[in-house]
């Protein structure tokens, strides 16, 4: 049996043995035995090796579950115990430090405006922003966006995948975004609720992704009419933990495109999900949409877990068992949320000298704009303040308008979710004595109408 003599015998550092005894079981020569002595370093009871009769069969090595447990002793090595640090370390991973591969901006030839519905406009915005991966689960009234993507993406060699649920959807996004690529979903309120756990994971792991939520009537299954009742979810309830994401509020099919396009840029800039909140009307509404002047071919960020040599070093995780480490992540996220305040956006209409300031988003902002015009015709100085980001709330844009304002009227299709954001923003800004705030609220798939706004303001100003 000359071969047996040349086969390497096992070697074991007792510190790395937990004494499970799988090796004891397989050694026919009885070279390995359970011991009784507790290793003072580990508190474990490592096995004992007596290799006098060892044939080097290797079964013990194969049976050992520890990467640095039993291993073959190479020729020339000694049995003597060695310092583990010199035996195994400091061998480092050979994985290289990844670098950013920048994207590029590609000019688009001029095109005539399209006449398309809001969900389509949003889909085109995503395509133009470089998104080639869309995941989703059908839900009215958002599905047309996914349907258009399923039709268009193959033409751009992209990928649409219908997930088994909204829960699976958000984790498809987690994986795809983890690989460093722009991705998105179309959903509607009940679906968005289901995605929130994953949004929290994306925020924790600092992954980008765009969620277009076409809000419908709730609670529960509700209906498929327009509502604005997911604002508290997007602004205050993105899953568990300290979470925030930039929340964009389009009010026209054009903005469905523009803000979806912008959402990708912001999402990668901050390595964080971005939510586009539209009401059911906006999703379904057809209107004029002008294409931008350029489209994006995304690069590949240094942080991607792409599945190649350049990114082997990377890890995405949101689990940090060590409390100081997790607190440090939260501090970092809070700093990021602070930096996101710079992205606050708003539009004003006849607001500079307004005495009655309407505050509205999405489709109700259109009705409010019409109302402001009608009220001006009647000699009431009405204006509109339209937050384009609901989080962060554009308080800095609002502040200078407040000088002449005698009444603030919040017009919304929810039970005060926009008003809550407004009041919170005023409070945080130290505005303790804001003008009186009243509201027009509709729910359940009904939107406030222009005439409702006009009547409310007339009443408020004693002109009824």
């Amino acid at each position, binding site marked *: 049996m000359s071969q047996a003599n040349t086969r390497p015998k096992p070697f074991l550092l007792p510190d790395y043995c937990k004494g499970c005894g799988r090796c004891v079981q397989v050694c026919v020569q009885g070279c390995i035995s359970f011991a009784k002595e507790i290793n003072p370093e580990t508190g474990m009871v490592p096995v004992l090796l007596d290799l006098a009769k060892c044939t080097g069969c290797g079964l013990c090595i194969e049976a050992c579950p520890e990467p640095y447990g039993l291993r073959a002793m190479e020729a020339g090595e000694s049995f003597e115990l060695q310092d583990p640090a010199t035996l195994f370390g400091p061998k480092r991973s050979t994985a290289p430090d990844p670098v950013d591969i920048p994207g590029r901006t590609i000019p688009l030839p001029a095109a005539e405006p399209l006449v398309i519905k809001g969900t389509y406009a949003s889909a085109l915005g995503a395509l133009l922003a470089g998104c080639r991966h869309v995941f989703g689960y059908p839900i009215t009234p958002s599905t047309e966006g996914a349907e258009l993507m399923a039709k268009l993406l193959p033409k*751009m060699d992209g990928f649409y995948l219908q997930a088994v649920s909204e829960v699976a959807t958000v984790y498809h996004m987690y994986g795809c975004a983890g690989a460093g690529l722009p991705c998105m979903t179309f959903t509607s309120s009940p679906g968005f609720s289901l995605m929130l756990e994953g949004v929290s994971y994306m925020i924790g792991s600092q992954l980008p992704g765009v969620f277009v939520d076409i809000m419908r009537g709730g609670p529960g299954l509700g209906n498929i009419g327009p509502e604005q009742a997911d604002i508290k979810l997007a602004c205050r309830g993105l899953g568990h933990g300290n979470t925030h994401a930039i929340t964009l509020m389009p009010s026209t099919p054009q903005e469905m495109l523009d803000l979806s396009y912008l959402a990708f840029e912001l999402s990668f800039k901050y390595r964080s999900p971005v939510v586009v909140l539209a009401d059911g009307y906006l999703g379904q509404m*057809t209107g004029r949409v002008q294409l931008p002047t350029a489209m994006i071919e995304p690069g590949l960020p240094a942080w991607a877990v792409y599945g190649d040599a350049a990114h082997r070093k990377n890890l995405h995780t949101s689990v940090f068992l060590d409390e100081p480490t997790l607190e440090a992540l939260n501090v970092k996220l809070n700093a990021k949320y602070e930096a996101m305040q710079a992205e606050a956006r708003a539009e004003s209409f006849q607001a500079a000298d307004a005495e009655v300031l309407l505050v509205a988003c999405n489709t109700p902002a259109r009705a409010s704009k019409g109302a402001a015009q009608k009220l001006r015709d009647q000699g009431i100085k009405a204006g509109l303040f339209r937050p384009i980001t609901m989080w962060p709330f554009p308080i800095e844009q609002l502040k200078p308008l407040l000088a002449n304002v005698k009444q603030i009227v919040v017009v919304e299709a929810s039970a005060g979710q926009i008003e809550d954001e407004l009041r919170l923003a005023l409070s945080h800004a130290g505005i303790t004595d804001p003008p009186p705030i009243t509201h027009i609220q509709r729910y359940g798939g009904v939107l406030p109408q222009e005439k409702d706004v006009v009547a409310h303001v007339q009443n408020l100003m004693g002109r009824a």
Partner: protein
Amino acid sequence: MSNAFYGTFERHSDGKGLKGHSTHYCAGCGHGLAHKYLAEAIDELGIQDDTVAVNPVGCAAFLYFYLDTGNTSTAHGRSPATAVGHKVANPNAMVICYQGDGDLAAIGLAETISTAQLGIPITVIFINNAVYGMTGGQMAPTTLMGQTTTTSPDGRDRLTGSPIRMAELIAQLDGPVYVERVALFSPAERKKAKRAIKKALLMQKERRGYAFVEVLAECPTHLKTTPEKAMTWVKEQMLPIFPLGVKKDANFEPWFEMPKLGFDPTTLLKAIGASSEKPAGFCKGFPTHLNPTDISLKLAGSGGDGAQTIAMLIAKAAINEGFDGTHIPAYGPESRGGTSYADVHVALEEVHNPASPHPDVFVAFNAPSLAKFGNTVRPGGIIIYDNAVAKDVKTTDPTVKVIGVPFTDIAARLGKMVVKNIVALGALQAATELFPAETLLATLRDTLKDKAALIPLNEKAFAEGAAAAREAMKR
């Protein structure tokens, strides 16, 4: 020692002390062996750089402490969904799901089954130890009948279900190319386990499909026994319920190569139907005779009447003429039949209220629509309705003009019921003069440019609808 393991486990308590070269698993746990065989297979197949290991929730949550590959840790049960995301982002990546029984067979069952049926080439290593380890010994979906756990203290019984055989379940799906159940309790079984894990990775490397290896593993800690007895328990108790062996070994052709993502602007513009050609205008000015700045229309019928199609045409025509236009559809729950109505606005500058609660113009395809919306038309407004299906229509407001046109009869005479809506569009044009006929016809032709053969019929339907409306207005 496999090169696919880190030289020092720096993520394990910063690699300090013993943890730098030691796993976090209990003595006798099966995970260490599964990790080792996985690492060795990665090494032997030369795929370390390409590998993305999807870390589960459960005892193996910290796979990334050890595997020197790309790593993503995900939520409980979401490994396959996450893996699919990685795989479609980079089809050349070697994506591995490493999951426990709670992760794969309880909370993640929907994702597990749907991903297996999808068959996308990923590798799933399923560690079945019949108990929840990380949370402290609760009942798993694979817990055996009679087995005591902290949540089946008197032993699993009918009320708590019975163990689910995942390998068999996965094997009967169309998607997977290779499914095997292996164990770790003897040298022979370990050899098979290692071979199975390597083969499952090879199936992915060769792009043949989804591969699944169920590993019966020991959890002496929560079996409350010794490592040695745990091995005996797996052999004697688990094997009768979870028989070992290859459950599926198909010979699939490799999946197609995923093409490189496209970013050609011309292709994109063509795909989305954008054109640089300015549409011709025919309007002399805004149709102020209907409303000075913003005309509100409602079109209502049954699903399938085509109300939405012509609503869209009107909005499109408005924008082609340089005005603003919007269209909002509303449907009943039915795909065909049921109610279907459309609110359309045509505005000189900007539509503020896209809904039409009090339309200037109302087009009704049937009697229920007339009943529902007839009285919402504003004073002085116009109603155009299908008098082939609704008879003797009167309004309470005498200022509203009511024009009956037999949409259905005309369409039937033309031999195609589907042009009923175009008959209505022609009638609407003639009755309201919202736009010149040519505006709507140009938009109609553009919409039908891919089905050019249908254009003459549609033009005829439009003309007949318009003629019938003119005739009706004379009466």
